[in-house]
């Protein structure tokens, strides 16, 4: 667990091999843990998943919580980026 004083810029979670809703629960658990840093825009959550359904359920859930989401596709998995003010910071 990271200290609250110096949160990393990006927290990465690898959920590859897992399917929804456990990927969602894992993501939500991390989101809950780091919510202050993420809400303030200091930290971004980077979720790797190879479960296609997760690219729908995770963004749907976190948007309701007031986060921004960007989903990108890598070669063999998806990256779901969650945070605040993402558009200005991240490459599409």
């Amino acid at each position, binding site marked *: 667990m990271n200290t609250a004083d110096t949160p990393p810029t990006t927290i990465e979670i690898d959920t590859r091999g897992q399917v*929804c*809703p*456990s990927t*969602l629960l894992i993501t*939500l658990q991390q*989101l*809950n843990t780091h919510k202050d840093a993420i809400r303030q825009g200091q930290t971004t959550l980077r979720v790797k998943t190879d479960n296609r359904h997760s690219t729908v359920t995770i963004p749907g859930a976190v948007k309701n*919580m*007031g986060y921004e989401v960007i989903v990108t596709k890598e070669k063999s998995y998806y990256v779901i980026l969650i945070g605040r003010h993402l558009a200005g910071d991240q490459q599409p």
Partner: protein
Amino acid sequence: MKIQELVTALHHACQNPVAPLPDHRLADNELAPLVALAVNLIEENRALKSHNRKAICYIRDKINQLLQVIGTLPLRPEELEDDTLLTLDPIGVVAESFAQILEHQRETNKNLELAMEEIEAIFEAVGCGVLVVDEKMRVQAYNRQVKLMFPTFTGSWDGIPCHNIVCRDSRLSQQCPFRKVLDTGEIVHFNDWPVGDRYFDIVATPIKNRTGKVVKGVLLYHDTTSQKMAASALSAEKERLAVTLRSIAEGVITTDVDGNVMLMNRVAEELTGWRQREACGQPTCEVFWIVDEKSRSHCIKLPSDVISSGDTIELAGDTVLIARDGYERLVSITAAPIRDHDRETVGVVMVFRDITEQKRLDEEILNARRIESLGILAGGIAHDFNNLLTGILGNITLARMTSEPSTPLAEKLSRAEKACLRARDLTQQLLTFSKGGAPVRKTATITDLLKETALFALRGSNVQCHLDISPDLWPVEVDEGQIAQVVNNLVINADQAMPDGGTLTVGADNITVGNRSHLPLTAGRYIKIAVQDTGTGIEPDHLDKIFDPYFSTKKKGSGLGLASCFAIIKKHDGSISVESKPGQGATFTFYLPAAKSAPVEVPSPPEEATPPGTGRILIMDDEEMILELAKELLTADGFQVETATDGKEAIAAYQKAMRAGETFDVVIMDLTIPGGMGGKETIQRLREIDPGVRAIVSSGYSTDAAMADFVSHGFKAVVPKPYRAEMLLRIIHRVMSDTFRN
């Protein structure tokens, strides 16, 4: 049961929840309590496991419910083992997430509230009236502005059909903007929508549901009444300005600061020959070509002069405007800067008028004054001049009397005499334009006058003269000198119109003018004299100006000839007119009223046959020469002659003669005696002394009515100076004849 068997059975019962439990009674007595305890524990364990399974099922069930709320799939049992599930604490995770969702929801709601407040503020603050209606046109929302715009409907507007509030006119509401929005589903704009005595711009915007059906409309009302009033006032003002510009007699051209034409009115178009649409944007000098009348060197660039001086410039009358077709006009121009509100010069306005005619009139007036002063001068010397002419004429007559008739000497004397008479006529012409100059009329047949004057004027000309005078021409009551002057002028003009020769016809005929005649004459008997030439004719443009004083087409013409003809004929109650076509000659026609009586003058006997005079004659004149001449002439004719130099002397001589019983048969008196008693006063006194006095008045020149109306002043006859001896004698004989005896 052995211990080993018991342990196996108990173990089996632990693993298998449905396996039968060993009976403690079958155990040895010593083991029986332990078996019973173990069975109890197993039973308890079985109950706990069952309860645990139910709890996990319940947790999974609830987690699935929560996940469904979040929007994901239910958990599959194989995906997460019960132990992992419990480690992950999904309810905690989801609960925490829900907390975040709620927090986000709260934030969103707060933001929404703020947005609502903002919208509410905008709704009220917007300068327009806003009305929101549902698809049945019932008011859903409205702002304060719209309520102020349509104050007639009091109370709450909610749910009220909008046409009850706004239009209040069934005909208007048929064309309702929102109806159109409902029909088209599109935003609709209406300009100047009349409601009552006000006008509105209306924007109606549809609000659609997800299926695209219009469920509401937002109507935006902007009161344009004052704008429309201002616009119509502005347009009225513009129209007034345009009408004013069109109506004024001056030309108006405005330019921008670079001197390019911006606007010109109708008069400016006429004077320059440019139409506004062609001239717009052109440099001023292209359109408004003005030069100094004398130097004519370059176009005067008025706009740049005005802008550099910053002041009004006036060009009073030495400026010539050259129109597009080359026509030149004298103009007076005022050019002034056009300034905006900040006193910045934004252009130049030039106002100009054609003063060609005015300048001509000014010159005419100047000319008239010059002529008038000439006339006054002529009037001043006429008396002396005519006295001198009388002396010359009289002496010529005396010379002729002593010369043999039909000799070269007699011929030369005769020519000299005629020249003297022409000199007299010339003086007369000048006198026409001095004040007075009333014709000294007498009844005469002017046949001879016409012949003589025409032939005299054509002497030395290559023009043939043809006379067509009615043999029984009625006599007229005229001043023969003046009529001769008219004929002379007409004949000279005709002669000049035929530089290469031609035919001049002088016709004279009797004519009776009826009541319905187109001639400007009162009904009656007239003689009509026509002077017709075969010359160059007169331009139609000139025909109506030809009798105007000072109008002349001749380079050295005074413009007085025809004008004096007109004046003379008018004074004789006649009329004069002209007909001509260019290249086809001209005919001047004048009418003179026929005399009511036959000429008083009896046909004069041949000059040689004038009977010798017998009688006494008193002549009064301040001019020594006249006295001597008349004395010589009359004495030569057989009269006894006495002379007097003024009225007093004349009266004394007359009284003396009366006392001596030798009354004068005739008294000839000059009308004016400088510094002494003249003829008019003298005759009054003489009539008192001798009511039967026979007096003849004579004058070189006088504006006195006594010359024209001598009879009522007590004279028997008039003899204008200069006179020829024959005329004087004829008049004396006539006065002495019985006709004049009282």
